[in-house]
């Protein structure tokens, strides 16, 4: 279900190459290389202090790297001028920061103006409705709850329909309903072709729709994990697991058979595997889809880094 992947940069919407950042002699990030393709969701995970926020500041052009380059749709964000940010929507703080004396709508109007959007009224209304903020849109942001501010942050990021979305902890401070809403929107945007990069600690939630997870540790990209489609891998428990695994390797329609503790893991048709095992008189105790537990994997990977 998971595999380490090399970054492919052809046609990438967002691309970081050999990115490094030092403060004085202290390296904060080293040799970060990865790419996010259009329509792909890339989740950035890592313990506190691993460099996620610094990386996001570099990717959005708020900070400048000591080495390396970031390209948005092929344009160098540092030397390509501000125009490279036209394709970018981002929220780099949790909760998102806004001018507290302005209303939610006025804040979005300012963002629209700075983004060069003309006649943005209808689009502002649309994103406010999408993020369920219409009822509070004309109240000063200082009266907003944490969750409302966070949703307004996402509204400002998607306002100009960017092709690349970079979000730092987009679900931080949201209630379960708000979290589902944000995930739903992100999945929908990715489906429409937007390249989404988000940093998160909520790996189990993100693994439902993320395509890749980059695990950061100690300022380095420890691994990129590609998440496959759910339901392709199965797990079964059987009376003699090693022998059953050896047998399943010979069954057509069943692939990548392996042992994990007392369970047999395989890909392919569960019906074929089950019928074959029963035919050979194995006592099958259970068979179920084997969901890749990203959180467990991440924990293990960071621990061993």
């Amino acid at each position, binding site marked *: 279900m998971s595999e380490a992947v090399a970054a492919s940069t052809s046609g990438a919407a967002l691309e970081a190459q050999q990115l490094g950042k030092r403060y004085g002699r202290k390296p904060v990030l080293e040799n970060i290389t990865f790419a996010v393709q259009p329509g792909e969701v890339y989740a950035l995970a890592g313990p506190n202090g691993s460099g996620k926020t610094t990386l996001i*500041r570099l990717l*959005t*052009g*708020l*900070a*400048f790297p000591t080495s390396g380059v970031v390209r948005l749709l092929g344009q160098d964000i540092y030397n390509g*001028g*501000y*125009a*490279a*940010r*036209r394709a*970018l929507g*981002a929220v*780099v*703080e949790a909760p*998102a*920061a*806004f*001018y*507290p*004396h302005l209303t939610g709508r006025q804040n979005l109007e*300012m*963002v629209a*103006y*700075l*983004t*060069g959007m003309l006649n943005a009224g209808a689009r502002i209304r649309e994103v406010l409705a999408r993020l369920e903020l219409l009822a509070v849109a004309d109240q000063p942001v200082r009266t907003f709850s944490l969750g409302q501010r966070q949703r307004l942050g996402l509204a*400002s990021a998607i306002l100009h329909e960017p092709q690349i979305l970079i979000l730092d902890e987009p679900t931080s401070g949201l209630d379960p309903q708000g979290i589902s809403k944000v995930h739903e929107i992100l999945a929908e945007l990715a489906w429409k072709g937007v390249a989404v990069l988000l940093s998160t600690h909520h790996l189990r939630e993100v693994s439902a729709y993320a395509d890749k997870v980059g695990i950061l540790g100690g300022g380095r990209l420890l691994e990129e994990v590609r998440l496959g489609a759910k339901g392709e891998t199965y797990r079964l428990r059987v009376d003699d697991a090693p022998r059953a695994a050896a047998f399943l390797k010979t069954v057509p329609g069943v692939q990548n058979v392996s042992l994990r503790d007392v369970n047999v893991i395989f890909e392919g048709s569960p019906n074929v595997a089950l019928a074959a095992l029963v035919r050979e008189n194995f006592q099958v105790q259970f068979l179920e889809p084997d969901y890749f537990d990203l959180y467990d994997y991440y924990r293990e990977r960071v621990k061993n880094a």
Partner: protein
Amino acid sequence: MLRILIWELGKLVRLRSVQIGLLAALVLPALWAFAPGLRAQYGLELVSGWQVPALSLLTGMDFLFPFLTAMAAAEVLGSEVSMGTLKLVLLRPSPRSRLLGAKIVVVLAYPFILLLVSLLGSLWAGLPFGLGSFFGGTGVGEGSFAGVGQLSPAEALAELLRAYLLAGVVLWPLSALAILYAVIFLSTTSAALAAVSTLLLMRLLVAFPALQPFLLTSYLDLYVRPEAVSWGLPLLIIYTVGFSLLALLIFERKDI
């Protein structure tokens, strides 16, 4: 650009240091006008309301106005850093120089706003002394407060406007210096402290006579020294432009 300038102006007047500064500029002239120790301090007996603005200017420019100006300039950027809104703005496809340029314009306008409020406050405080023609001087024209004869209200106002405008320009380099420090430190307190410290340090440099003509602190009283305007004014403008350009240059590649 005009819309950004209006936004920046709106943000400026919401800053706490600006609100306190404007209140002080409005109210303090009343204290100067009715202070019992005025004669002892300045050897001055007010004979006209037109003399109160000069009194406010003389006392204010000594420390209060430069300090308020530095605080406001530092807070214009520092408050955005502390609120996190600077990132919100810089993420947009707009040149950094345009955003900081608008702030610099507003910061350079602030001394005039501050001084205008002080002038209005002073004229209000001077009302009990009368604002008609009088024998004497405004304190910022020929003959200082003693004057050189009778002064009409129009002449008095013209002298005061000229002095207040010059005082505004005198405060420009300090505003530009404070915003330069704000860009460097990204902190209101550090920037204001650094700007005021630089000002105090420059005052000490008068111990080196060769440097004196080039120190901006040598021209803080330019509004009462018309003979120094031809050299002092261009120098103050050069300082202002220099500090502003440096701020823009550093901000262009500054990590936020």
